[in-house]
């Protein structure tokens, strides 16, 4: 390679919003319904049906806009993007071209060099998702499922400000954090609730002009985004180095082959004949509305991390994990408030919770137990009502169905044997039944006490505190 090249990347990120109902009708947005069960005249494009905007969509879009330092458009509009395709029941998609809800924002990311940089947000606009085509190759027919038709999306269009895959991932992670913290979406790339299209061009280092860009689609994970960027950068440089020129086109990335292929070139670009949708009234956003949304914005991760370090004195590593999900952070804060034991709470989250989440292939957002019950459980161990192995058992039950630990311990008789007399009797029994071990211990084999403790615990059915048993045995053995 004779020259050094710089990669220039901009992203178009589609995010499916977590509203209960669709953007222009009252149908459910839930996944997994029977084919065409979440549909009505509006989202199937029946003659005479009309769209009515779901206000929650605007709220989420504004909230994301505020988090990413955007200007909020006070008088916005929806436009029709006209194109024919069977998954698009009206043959136009209701989107925003002329007056998108948010503009001119930025997201601050950390760079590899340890500094930070701003990635510009050109705009955020609201639009509706399309249905899904189902191809039956045996019957030679294609069918359409309109359950996803009308599910609300926001499209976040960045400026071409990123220069490496690392920056792209940092930007996406930051966006995802904001959106998850806002509860606006779960942002799962694999499941398509977050989709990123990569616009990429290369230019010789120092060049003022951008090169010709391509757009890459079908990127379903951070790994495939990273691979796609590397392969596309290489492809474009090869073309330029061999004297050719890059064609502006849309390319589809094949994750298995690790390469992309052309879908359509700019010459095939359709004229979408955008115009304001006359069925919808302008989206008027008042100052009060913005203020109201602002007042509800959560504390985002960077601020939270700084505060945790200051307030709770738990390790940075724990802070990183706990604040990665707002659901986890919420439980942490609430349980800490109730128990006054940040380290204990953190420990339960870092060890048992993460283990069970991983085991059951769940996300922190799926956690069922309440912060109160976790605090109660910690209270039980603090007061030595139960020992740690019983606590784990109770926690597993709690993790399952948010069982009340206090009631559970009571009902199942899991309280530690605190009756000194009864415990002493058990110890004496164990000493009497295990003369060999007693002999060993007395002969100086300190380890032999372990066996006796174990036997005592066994007879006490696990309800005894090992520490107490240990000292009691030593006492009895003189």
């Amino acid at each position: 390679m004779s020259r050094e090249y710089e990669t220039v990347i901009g992203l178009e990120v589609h995010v499916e919003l977590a509203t209960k109902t669709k953007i222009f009708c009252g149908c459910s947005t839930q996944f997994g319904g029977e084919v065409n069960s979440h549909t009505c005249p509006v989202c199937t494009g029946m003659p005479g049906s009309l769209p009515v905007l779901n206000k929650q969509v605007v709220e989420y879009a504004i909230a994301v806009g505020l988090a990413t330092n955007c200007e909020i458009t006070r008088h916005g509009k929806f436009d029709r993007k006209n194109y024919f395709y069977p998954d698009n029941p009206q043959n136009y998609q209701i989107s925003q071209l002329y007056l998108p809800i948010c503009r001119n924002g930025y997201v601050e990311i950390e760079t590899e060099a340890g500094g930070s940089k701003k990635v510009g947000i050109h705009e955020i606009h609201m639009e509706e998702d399309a249905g899904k085509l189902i191809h039956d190759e045996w019957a030679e027919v294609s069918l359409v499922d309109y359950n996803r038709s009308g599910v609300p999306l926001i499209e976040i269009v960045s400026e071409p400000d990123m220069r490496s895959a690392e920056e792209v991932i940092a930007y996406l992670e930051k966006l995802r954090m904001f959106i998850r913290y806002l509860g606006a979406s779960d942002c799962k790339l694999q499941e398509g609730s977050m989709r990123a299209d990569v616009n990429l061009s290369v230019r010789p280092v120092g060049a003022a002009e951008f090169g010709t860009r391509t757009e890459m689609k079908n990127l379903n994970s951070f790994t495939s985004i990273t691979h796609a960027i590397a392969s596309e950068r290489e492809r474009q440089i090869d073309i330029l180095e061999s004297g050719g020129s890059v064609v502006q086109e849309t390319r589809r990335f094949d994750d298995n082959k690790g390469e992309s292929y052309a879908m359509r070139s700019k010459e095939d670009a359709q004229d979408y004949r955008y115009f304001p949708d006359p069925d919808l009234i302008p989206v008027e956003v008042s100052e009060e509305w913005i203020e109201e949304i602002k007042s509800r914005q959560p504390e985002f991760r960077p601020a939270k991390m700084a505060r945790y370090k200051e307030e709770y004195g738990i390790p940075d590593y724990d802070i990183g994990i706990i604040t990665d999900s707002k659901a986890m952070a919420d439980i942490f804060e609430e349980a800490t408030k109730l128990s006054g034991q940040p380290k204990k709470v953190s420990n339960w989250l870092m060890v048992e919770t993460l283990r069970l989440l991983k085991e059951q292939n769940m996300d922190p957002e799926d956690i069922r137990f309440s912060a109160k019950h976790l605090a109660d459980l910690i209270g039980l161990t603090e007061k030595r009502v139960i020992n740690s192995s019983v606590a784990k058992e109770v926690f597993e039950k709690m993790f399952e169905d948010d069982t009340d630990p206090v009631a559970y311990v009571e009902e199942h008789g899991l309280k530690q044997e605190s009756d000194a007399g009864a415990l002493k009797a058990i110890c004496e029994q164990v000493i009497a039944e295990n003369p060999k071990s007693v002999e060993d211990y007395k002969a100086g084999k300190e380890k032999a006490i372990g066996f006796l403790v174990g036997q005592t615990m066994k007879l006490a059915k696990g309800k005894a505190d090992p520490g107490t048993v240990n000292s009691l045995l030593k006492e009895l053995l003189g």
Partner: protein
Amino acid sequence: MKLTEMSAWELGQKIAGGELKATEALDACMEQIGVREDEIHAYITLDAERAYENAEAVQKRIDAGESLGPLAGVPMAVKDNMCTEGMLTTCASRILGNFVPAYSATAVEKLKEAGAVIIGKTNMDEFAMGSTTETSYFGITRNPRNTEHVPGGSSGGSAAAVAAEECIYALGSDTGGSIRQPAGYCGVVGIKPTYGTVSRYGLVAYGSSLDQIGPLTKDVRDAAAVLEAISGYDEKDSTSLDRKDLHFTEALREDVKDLRIGIPSDYFGEGLDEEVGEAVRKAAEELKAAGAKVEECRLDLVKYAIPTYYTIADAEASSNLERFDGIKYGYRTEEYTDLHDMYKKTRSEGFGAEVKRRIMLGSFVLSSGYYDAYYLKALKVKALIKKAFDEAFSKYDILLGPVAPTTAPRLGESLSDPMKMYLGDIYTVSANLAGIPGISLPCGADKEGLPIGLQLLGDCFREDVLIRAAYTYEKIRK
């Protein structure tokens, strides 16, 4: 007096008073249909079976003492571009020739609630595009006053059905004069309300920003009563207005004293038939004699109304009609090689010439490179036209003029010259562009006995003034 000669109000009173059964009123209409329908062809769909079921059901409600309002039990007809659950809704097009909606338009629902008995669906210009009802895929409708002439359009079937007494009243829709002009040609009363007064939900859209549903009736009282029944805020239509002043029957007073009536000289220029002009001026004199203040005025910009209207209406129509693609409902071509071939053939075969002409015009004015020069400019002129009306209504309560330049043309005359047909809309389209209400009522006849229509235009939300003046004039004429 024959039952079918009665107004809806009179018939409704008899039914409510127990003098007449709803089924007897229906019998009378069916008898009249038997006499005249073969020649007139006002209906696309006649559903006697369902009509009798409805009449019996309404009668039961009346017998049970339910208070249903003045229209209960009165047989009526609905223009075939409004969805009627379980009843064909074709828009007079081959492409919807087999379409049976799963829901009813809000206006239809409201009438059903009020005890209306729907006889059937009336003929119209295909997708409401035309001024003569000659573009219907299902054949022409004749003017009951003179069967060599057109009934006007696009709500020609509704106007003809009322004029031929094949129903007592009907619903029409008005995008550029489609209620007022056929009412004028057939000698009945028609109102286009203020945009947003009647829900458009379930009205198959032509020009969404201009479409309004309204009544076609025998007299002004019926028009007020029907409008009162169908108007009101609808959460399913974002463009519907929450008006509190919907008691239109309260405006039925003989009183035009001090009413300021302006006569725009621009409405009496070139192209206006002499007899029509005379009849309209005579009506103005009569209102003056009754106490109104009448004076000539100017309403510039009228000459821009036609190009502005056709640019906006066709642009919206080109997008609104995209959903008719053979995928989900309606006509699909027999043989095709692939998806695009199917689209092309279906739409080529499914739409008539006038519809295709307007889709092409509309697609053109929205296409990239022409959008600003045509569509955007038309929107600006539309705003100027609204401003001109605002100024006029600061001086006058009513603007009075003809509905159309001539009386009903002979069958076949208009189709050969679409430009001439478009120019025939000159007096009606401005009201749609400005969103203001208009009423059309008979004010005489020409030498051949064809009715002449008088048009009164009012400021937004002032249907009451129009109804009062029209009611007064109607009394003077009788």
